[in-house]
């Protein structure tokens, strides 16, 4: 989604992966998101993960709904087919694509608005089907592309300031997914490249639906009143505007902290969130323990990150359906048609 093709400078001595490809071979066109948008950091992590896993670009399909987050598939792996669908309906398109070709690596990128409001039903049912895909929610607590209305997920930038109430009534994709019996559920932060890359790789490797809830600050619309950089502030200091108005130049927020540790991250609006990385000995295979763990940290106002739950034994969509191993779209017509003789035979009973 850009006017300009991205210039590809070939740095001497860049590493090549197992396929002999450079990291830049996994890039897409130039991002048109706001400078400092968390989504761009996630894109970078996806590029790195796919490069490290040496996935053949043409074996990847990348899908999305509508939103700033949903624009990002254009920004990675130009050699992969992409599908920018309609708002909130990415999961169904992914389900169809996977039904037709089970061997393609499928990454679905969505936003909190795209998946938790208009797309909540499809979000839930993609997990229920255990569709073999990486389902990544770039969660900023707002509708970025339509200029900052609050979304159904709690605003990470103001969680610390909000009472239990608002938190309770916000939809938490991680807790919901686990309660609905998802087979892989993780959470990370756009600025934590190391953890993010690891989780993306794990999610792609997982045979089934892998949900990644990635907190991804919106530099433009973290609408916390009083903040000197908030949308409200900008608006009142500007003349009336029919476009977004002034977007202050901002830089990406990053966080690097050890397993088991916690870190307080300051958002663009000056508020902060407390991230808690799962301890090394944390056991993500026990569903009830996980729920208890989430509950405990929620009370402490901490946001647990990491691989929070996984069950590798759950059969994926095709296992449940008993579909042929060979991708359906690769069958010859001769393998699909019963032919005229069978038709004649069949009709004798009619």
């Amino acid at each position, binding site marked *: *989604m*850009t006017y300009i093709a991205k210039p590809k400078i070939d740095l001497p001595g860049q590493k090549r992966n197992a396929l002999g490809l450079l990291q830049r071979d996994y890039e897409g066109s130039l991002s048109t998101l706001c400078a400092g948008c968390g989504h761009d950091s996630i894109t970078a992590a996806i590029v790195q993960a796919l490069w490290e896993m040496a996935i053949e*670009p*043409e*074996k990847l*399909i990348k899908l999305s709904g509508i939103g700033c987050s949903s624009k990002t*598939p*254009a920004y990675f792996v*130009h*050699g*992969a*087919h*992409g*599908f*920018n*669908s*309609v708002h909130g*309906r990415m*999961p*169904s*398109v*992914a*389900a*169809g*694509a*996977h*039904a*037709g*070709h089970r*061997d*393609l690596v499928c990454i679905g990128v969505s936003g909190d608005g795209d998946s938790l409001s208009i797309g909540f*039903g*499809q979000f*839930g*049912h993609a997990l229920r089907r255990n569709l073999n895909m990486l389902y990544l929610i770039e969660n900023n607590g707002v509708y970025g592309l339509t200029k900052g209305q609050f979304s159904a997920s709690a605003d990470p930038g103001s969680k610390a300031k909000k009472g239990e109430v608002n938190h309770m009534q916000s939809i938490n994709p991680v807790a919901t997914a686990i309660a609905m019996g998802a087979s892989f559920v993780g959470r990370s932060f756009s600025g934590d490249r190391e953890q993010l890359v690891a989780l993306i790789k794990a999610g792609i490797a997982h045979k089934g639906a892998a949900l990644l809830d990635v907190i991804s600050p919106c530099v433009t619309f973290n609408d916390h009143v009083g903040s000197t950089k908030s949308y409200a502030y900008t608006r009142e200091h500007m003349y009336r505007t029919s476009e977004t108005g002034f977007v202050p130049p901002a830089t990406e927020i990053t966080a690097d902290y050890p397993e088991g540790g916690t870190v307080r991250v300051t958002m663009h609006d000056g508020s902060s969130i407390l991230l808690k990385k799962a301890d090394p000995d944390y056991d993500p295979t026990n569903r009830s323990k996980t729920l208890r763990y989430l509950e405990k940290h929620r009370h402490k106002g901490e946001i647990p990150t990491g691989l929070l739950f996984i069950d590798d034994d759950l059969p994926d*969509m*095709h296992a449940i*359906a*008993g*579909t*042929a*191993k060979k*991708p*359906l*779209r690769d*069958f010859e*017509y001769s*393998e*699909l*048609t*019963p*032919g*005229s003789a*069978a*038709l*004649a035979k*069949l*009709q004798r*009973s*009619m």
Partner: protein
Amino acid sequence: MSATQSRINDFVLKIATVNGTGSASANSLVMKALFRMGIPVTGKNLFPSNIQGLPTWYEIRANKDGYMSRSGRVDVMVAMNAQTYSKDLKEVSPGGFLVYDSTWPRSHMLARDDITILGVPLSKLCNEHFSVARIRILMKNIAYVGVLAALLDIDLDVFRTLLEETFAAKPKLVDGNLDAIMLGYNYAKENFTCPLPVRAEKMGDNAGKILIDGNAAAGLGFVYAGATVGAWYPITPSTSLMDNFKTFCEMFRTDEVTGEKRYCIVQAEDELAAAGMVLGANWVGARAFTPTSGPGISLMSEFIGFAYYAEIPSVFVDVQRVGPSTGMPTRTQQCDILLCAYASHGDTRHPLLFPADPSDCFNMAVQAFDLAERLQTPVFMLSDLDIGMNDWMVSELKWDDSYQPDRGKVLSSEDLDALDKFVRYTDFDGDGIPYRTLPGVNPKGAYFVRGSGHNRQGGYTEDSLEYQDVMDRLLVKWDTAKTLVPTAVLTPASKKTKLGIIAFGSSHGAVVEARDHLAERGIHADYLRLRAFPFGAEVEEFLASHETIFVVEQNRDAQMKSLLMLETQTNSSKLSSILHYNGMPLPSDCIVAAIGAHIESEAAA
């Protein structure tokens, strides 16, 4: 009482029961028996949107001349439902017969002196003969089959054969059912003069004919079309289409050794999701379709517009039911034509196919995919409840083993290597159809499918000219579509005439019969049966060459006439609508009446 002239192999038998009592099986036993006797038959189910306890009717027309539509008369009524008894009584044509369960006296029974009323104590007979409660209810229905066998002179051996075929597995069920049949048969023989003047008579064996409903035929058609992915959300009257597709896939697409399935059916969470799945599967190159009905099309509208603009082949089947809204889910109409033709916001238009009977459903299932992939656009097959769920007698389905699917303009990996750059939305051939690529083939073929503004290369754009360029090409593609869809079928009148009739879909049978009756009255009309939208040259031709054209359709707002007004050059004052939209399958007599009246008024004027 008025004399009954004899009606051999030309009568309508209507059976009124309560749903959930298993009468359906008894009814189709009678239906099949008549069929086996070589008599052309059709059966219409009139059932409620409910599972148990509400009125349901089954109407069988036996007609030696092979007329397939409803005729508007009832010669023999089997009134098993106290709730609707008086209504059913009224419906019997003068000189006709009514059979009812006389176990209990009918307090509210109304008499009629112009028909013959025959009471048979069916419950009593069954209760005396069978012990188990459930069996009694079941057998009461089988028993009236026996009564009809006697009254209509249906060969008992035929019933035995049918039962043996069905219960091959459990022979004792055969005897049980036969006992019940004999109960009714004997009672009728002893108490009435059998057979009635209204009766059946063996006239062949209907060789080369089959009994089938449209949803079964369509389900089978999609197997032959090579469809591998079916996505759906249950909705009457389309549900049995996917049920049938599943059955036939289990039959023909399951690996004998591994049990692996060469198909994938996904029950979606709703119609929006079903549409998304169809787009996703077709995008990766698997033939995928979804069957639904009106409400589903409304919900799929957003995705349909996406498929039109992003040019993704896809097949939608709308088994139409009575609208608007939930309407009458178990009644028939042709009421989604305008919606499907222009579904979704913005400037959009979609090819439509109009099957007239189950064999069309079979063939058009295949055509729909060839068109969708050739044109890279969503294609709709507009069936309806009458075609989809009722029992039709049609010629045996044929298949040409030389058929190969038309996948349209798909570039192979080699094709791509030969190109220096792939562009998705450019018209190289002047037919408005661009070239597409499939995921998983070649990185050179990669592009980004989007419903947002794009240019002929496939890149995102907000540029006025680039946007308009693509929109204008889509109109060229539309013109190409006119040359690819099935042409309309012309049936000339026996005499030269300025009168024309245009009809389509399930109205066909009624029009055929009506034309014969009108011809007897000296009214001759050429007949054009539409099979698709957009309209080809032959439709313009027909419109131009007739002075008065009756457009017969099963909706209130003359939706097909609207399409003719919008998409042809014709002068709308020539078009005269014959509209039938009460939910019942179109009877031939209403066409005869309408055209007759029109002609007379013209004459008078």
